[in-house]
């Protein structure tokens, strides 16, 4: 039996408490994950400063080189995994088996993580706007334009409370290592695979193991990570986002409510953008915060909804090994039922119509012995104030909302990725000024097509470093 120990500053620690990591369909125990306790985290965090010390023994450029090597190893090598080893194919296979994610998506997420890692130099150059990275190491330095700048790290480590259902999010913490910030990871209960494999890849590439802690464990372990790391990220639902709103130490990543807005200047040619809309809803099984959950247009909305429904409606659960599998399983009992009931309640309104049902040939909710599926669902919503106009679920779900263009920006609410398909310069100016849109795409760009050179939900440099004043000589007389 594969055993996965706790990692304390690089050293394995065998806990007396273990949790089974099981196959989502058969219940077969695939691994035993040692469980940390909250006190252990607090004890270790007293030495967090050492993680940054060890990383600062290498330059950022050296660490970027190690990231490139780690990317290659992550993607191709047989790496240690707890008490065993793991090939890339075994990694994808076990990730799929314990999370219910189709194998093709596990592979795609693996590539995505490796891509980000291998392009770390360009990413950091973009995110720091060309700052010489040794300034981050030293804390201050002279820019080429002759200006003294100082960046002070907000924390020697970045804490992460990671999810089980979306291995793509791991891209967000990868820049910490080349920025000489240690990592304190609390893996999801059914997806320890990416954090552990990434840790081993980093170590094999030469990054000091002492820069990493991995604490699988119950909820209070996650709380302790958030409490003791001066900068941390957590992934969860809207309640989690609300809980940490305004807390500068914690970046909470939740639902995205990402949307496509069709301008009046292009909406009569909506068929040209059908592929963009379908891809935005369906990619990665509709699990991501960057998947589109709302398509807003002033007219043709019924036809748009119908055209998307024709494409998505027939999609049904397939074995995870099927290359055409397009939706992932819900492995937590009751979750799919709850979402299904909420949608049923929503469509009882006369302003909401489910369009997919006529193309689906069966129920939305598909129940298996140990997991459930929700089949793609497209709603047409004729009242933009109705609750179903702005909702999000973790499967391919989209509301096509009828709304005059001039009202869209005041009605769409918080939007992680907003793709506005328009050439109307005045509206583009308004879109640029709309502070409730985080990532703005202008043009026919799927919401899930991210350029990694752009910041995501805030610039990680600003989160991890404080740009402050620093003087080591008298300023000019004034």
């Amino acid at each position, binding site marked *: 039996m594969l055993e996965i120990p706790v990692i304390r500053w690089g050293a394995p620690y065998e*806990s*007396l408490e273990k949790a089974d990591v099981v196959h989502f369909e058969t219940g077969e125990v695939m691994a035993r994950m040692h*469980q940390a*306790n*909250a006190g252990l985290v607090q*004890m270790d965090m007293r030495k967090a400063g050492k993680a940054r010390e060890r990383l600062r023994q290498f330059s950022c450029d050296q660490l970027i080189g190690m990231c490139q090597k780690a990317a290659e190893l992550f993607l191709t090598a047989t790496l240690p995994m707890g008490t065993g080893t793991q090939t890339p194919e075994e990694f994808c296979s076990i990730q799929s088996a314990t999370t219910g994610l189709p194998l093709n998506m596990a592979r795609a997420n693996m590539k995505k993580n490796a891509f980000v890692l291998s392009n770390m130099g360009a990413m950091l150059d973009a995110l720091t706007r060309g700052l010489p990275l040794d300034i981050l190491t030293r804390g201050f330095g002279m820019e080429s334009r002759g200006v003294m700048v100082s960046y002070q790290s907000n924390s020697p480590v970045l804490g992460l409370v990671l999810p089980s259902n979306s291995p793509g999010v791991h891209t967000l913490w990868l820049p910490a290592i080349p920025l000489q910030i240690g990592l304190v990871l609390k893996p999801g209960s059914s997806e320890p695979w990416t954090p552990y494999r990434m840790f081993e890849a980093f170590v094999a590439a030469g990054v000091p193991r002492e820069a990493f802690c991995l604490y699988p464990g119950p909820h209070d372990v996650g709380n302790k990570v958030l*409490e003791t790391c001066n900068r941390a990220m957590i992934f969860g639902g809207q309640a989690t986002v609300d809980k940490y709103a305004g807390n500068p130490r914690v970046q909470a990543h939740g639902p995205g409510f990402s949307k496509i807005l069709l301008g009046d200047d292009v909406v009569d040619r909506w068929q040209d953008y059908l592929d963009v809309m379908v891809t935005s809803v369906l990619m990665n099984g509709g699990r991501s915060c960057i998947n589109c959950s709302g398509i807003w247009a002033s007219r043709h909305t019924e036809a748009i909804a119908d055209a998307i429904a024709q494409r998505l409606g027939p999609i049904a659960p397939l074995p995870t090994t099927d290359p055409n599998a397009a939706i992932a399983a819900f492995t937590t009992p009751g979750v799919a039922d709850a979402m299904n009931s909420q949608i049923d309640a929503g469509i009882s309104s006369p302003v909401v119509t489910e369009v997919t049902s006529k193309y689906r040939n069966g129920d939305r909710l598909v129940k298996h012995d140990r997991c459930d599926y929700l089949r793609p669902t497209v709603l047409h919503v004729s009242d933009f104030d109705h609750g179903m106009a702005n909702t999000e679920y973790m499967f391919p779900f989209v509301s096509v909302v009828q709304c005059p263009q001039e009202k869209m920006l005041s009605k769409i609410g918080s939007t992680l990725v907003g793709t506005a398909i328009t050439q109307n310069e005045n509206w583009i100016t308004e879109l640029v000024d709309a502070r409730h849109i985080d990532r703005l795409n202008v043009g026919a760009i799927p919401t899930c097509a991210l350029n990694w050179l752009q910041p995501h939900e805030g610039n990680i440099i600003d989160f991890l470093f404080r740009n402050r004043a620093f003087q080591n000589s008298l300023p000019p007389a004034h």
Partner: protein
Amino acid sequence: MSTLEEKCRAQRELLDEHTRETVRWHFSEDTGCDFWLEKKKTFDFDPLKDVNCFNDLKKFPLFEDEWLRGGPMRRWVPKQWQNKPIYVFETGGTTGIPKSRVVVEDHWIDYELFSATLPDESFPKGANWLMLGPSGPRRLRLAIEHLAQFRGGICFCVDLDPRWVVKLLKKGKVEDAKEYSAHCIDQAITILSANNDIQCMFTTPKLLEALALRLMDQGSSIEEAGIKGIFCGGTEFTQQWYRFAREELLGPNVYITPTYGNTLMGLACGKPHDPADNYKITYFAPQPRAVIEVVDFDDHNKVVEYGATGRVKLYTMTKELFVPGFLERDEGERELPHDKYPWDGVSSVRPYHVFAKTTTVGVY
């Protein structure tokens, strides 16, 4: 020297005799309390005639702790105790009318019995104590204080109100909860630093963690603060936490022992530490005054096999309180008798899996 089997048999006989005596006391018109004498009228059996051994307690319906909500409190006081000074202790949650238990001397007796299980080298007679944990309407503070006094010491107390912590956490005020915990630790540190000769301590796992780490941050330790022995309770005292506490929080020279109990029962003791157990925690009830059974999840009258998992069922049989079977909010594994405690034990106690998802644990 009698064998463990002989000891177990003798204890069983003692338990049967104690059961007959207790039932006679609580259901006789001249000694019983109003609650049980009224309740008796609803039974289809006569406790005075039909309960002749411990197993006959299964004739009673399960004790419902909801009965403990609200007054009049005196309905629980046996006739013979009505003129004694009476304490009332609360148990349980944060909302509604609290569940209360009246006590005359049980908390003293329970803790005097518990005292006999403590090793004198780690809990020296005459040493002073620190009680760092919930007091308020609970019996814990008075009980620990009595324990300290019974062993010839003085008890210093720092209170933490867990109901306030639960309220803060439910409102998402994590920082406020942390600040409150730090406020309690501040007080404990002050008392420990004030030349009070404190060598023994009761606290909860969370508070011990916070205290030990604060001392470490100050370059000190629990041991350097003078503490030799600690007893600590609650389902948070897990096997892994036990090991963490011994190996990392306390070091080899500070003794720590787990306890399990509540206001209804007394205090169940932990099996003495044995490296061969790999920190597995096994509790034994203070028989015959209280009994723990590990029962089938679906049939609470059926005790599970040794080593099997079941729900914790409590019985209390003192002259002050009669609880003929109460299903605790915990589960665990049934354990074989031990030479020091020749009756069944329960190990790895944790919140009952059905309730676990909705219970806020580890708040203090």
